[in-house]
């Protein structure tokens, strides 16, 4: 990449958001950050990554949490904050990357070179995909989708002002079920290219 580019991807479970993120990272030749974000943090801090991953993208019950002067007793909160801080530092350093989830559209909202995407899908198509990917029956696939999306939603809405999946919080929201993952990726590449070539983007890079 010639200039900095950060692509933030939020996604519904089963929508193929993660696969789209992989394809975008490959296309723009920039790293993909998802669960490996904690690997990087753990390596940098020389700590055990497993204990961090256990707390990744999880919601804390408010009854088991207390906040004092910005410090939270919740391990989940602290792991989330650690990731947010890491992402913000990476963005400040001028790194380009694709980031999946982690409230990134909100955490990096002040970054001018960030484009935020939310990938959703129709229930039937998502269910089919989840059944195939995880070898599940219809009932179990729907249950997994519901549980995963509920967790993501609670985690997101706990840290961000905007609601998870609300199109007003993202630059573009796209339903991947209509055209499929390949075509949706192409549309997104087109969108991102336009963003990179936009006068605003060029101006901010020139500053």
């Amino acid at each position, binding site marked *: 990449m010639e200039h900095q580019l950060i692509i933030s991807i939020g996604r519904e479970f089963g929508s193929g958001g993660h696969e789209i993120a992989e394809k975008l990272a490959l296309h723009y030749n920039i790293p993909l950050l998802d669960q490996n974000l904690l690997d990087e943090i753990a390596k940098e801090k*020389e*700590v055990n990554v497993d204990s961090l991953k256990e707390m990744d993208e999880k919601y804390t019950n408010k009854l088991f949490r207390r906040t004092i002067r910005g410090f939270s*007793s919740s*391990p989940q909160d*602290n792991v989330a904050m650690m990731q947010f801080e890491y992402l913000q530092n990476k963005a400040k350093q001028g790194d380009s990357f694709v980031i999946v989830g982690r409230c990134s559209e909100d955490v990096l909202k002040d970054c001018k070179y960030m484009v935020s995407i939310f990938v959703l899908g129709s229930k039937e198509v998502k269910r089919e995909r989840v059944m195939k990917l995880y070898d599940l029956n219809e009932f179990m696939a729907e249950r997994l989708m519901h549980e995963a999306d509920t967790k993501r939603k609670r985690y997101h809405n706990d840290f961000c002002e905007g609601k998870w999946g609300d199109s007003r919080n993202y630059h573009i929201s796209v339903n991947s079920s209509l055209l499929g993952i390949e075509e949706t990726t192409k549309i997104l590449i087109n969108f991102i290219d336009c963003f990179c070539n936009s006068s605003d983007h060029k101006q901010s890079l020139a500053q």
Partner: protein
Amino acid sequence: MLAQILAVVIFVVMFIFIIAEIAERHVVSLLSALATLILVFGFGMQSLEKAWNTLSLEHFFSPAFWYAKAGSLEESGGINWETIVFIFGMMVMVEGMAHVGFFRWLCMRIAKMVKYRIIPIFFTFMILSFILAMFIDSITVILFLAAVTIELAELLKFNPVPMILSEIFCANLGGSATMCGDPPNIIIGTSLHYSFSDFITNTGVMAAVSLLFVLVYFYFIFRKDLISKAKETDYSSLPSPESTITDRKGFLISSLIFLVTIFLLVTHAATGLTVSTVGVLVAVVTLAFSGKNAIMILKKVDYKTIAFFIGLFVVIGGLEQTGILEIVAGFIGKISGGNLMMMVAIILWLSAIASAIVDNIPFATTMIPVIKALSLSYGVDLSTLAWTLAMGTDIGGSATPIGASANVVGVATAAREGYVIKWGYYLKKMLPATIMVVFISMVLIFMKYL
């Protein structure tokens, strides 16, 4: 009856909102205070006088507020301005000390003194945590101790979590030793007119005895974790204690102010200076010597906590004025059958359990009128109940990660550096220690006072 119902509803709703963190606790307590003034005093009791009394603003104009030998303050319940003014003064002093690097210097100095050996650091930091928490707030103590512990752990290659947990426990224990160590003690002391030396000779003794057991306990459970994995250690990468001082002149002045403050607190019963006067003196002197940093120090004061206290006092004032707390006292008196030993056991364990789950400040504030009523109704010694309440609320908070402010700050500081402390691990190590100290306190109270 209507006023009583309203007072209880406001109190319960406030507690739920604080526990569930629906809004910041100072916002919740101030709104609850407003609701108490309007609904309980205005609508329920229709008494402007009681509402005014709860604000206790006239205390500022009473000589006894500043100088104890000038008489005694009129008992009105409501806002305990002595606590507010004292806490403000101490916050200013602590900010001044932190700004010049005092706490970091102290931690590094001690680590160097014991030649950076892990076990001696473990013991000295626990004792340091205990002693510092006797005079300054446990949040500040743990903020600096935990940060330095992690820094040392990274260099010496050991797991900092056991040391941080031990420091948290000792900070809470140290806070129980004096009148100014933990907010419940300040509130108990100022509300019931006990002095610094009253605390140190009662709760201080219990805390000191408990500390000996605690040192042994933590060493026993953590000894296998306190081993360095480093083959060689490069001590030169650690900052020298002197280099942590950001302002040498300010450092000397801050140290002097700290020592004079301790002297004023220790002697306040003899000199007649109230803790409000000590608080104001400390704040004024700190700010006067801080020069251009005075504004920055004032900005750093935790006004949210002060606002939380003010709101809380009004809500508890509502419960007190409507007679609800007398009903609670009557209930405790009834189940204890008027037996002091039973009362002590109930108050101690109830306070400890409640403080492990909810903020100990509202609990202690609520219980003060209750123990006063118990003392009046059953003719039992108020001071015995006061020391019991102080120990229960101060120690009980150590049991869970959410029980006390020091726990939250310690756990968060560790987690932000990648050392996640889960509830299960925390409870496994800290709950037995809490039960042990509460039990020791109960035995000591039984032996000394009954």
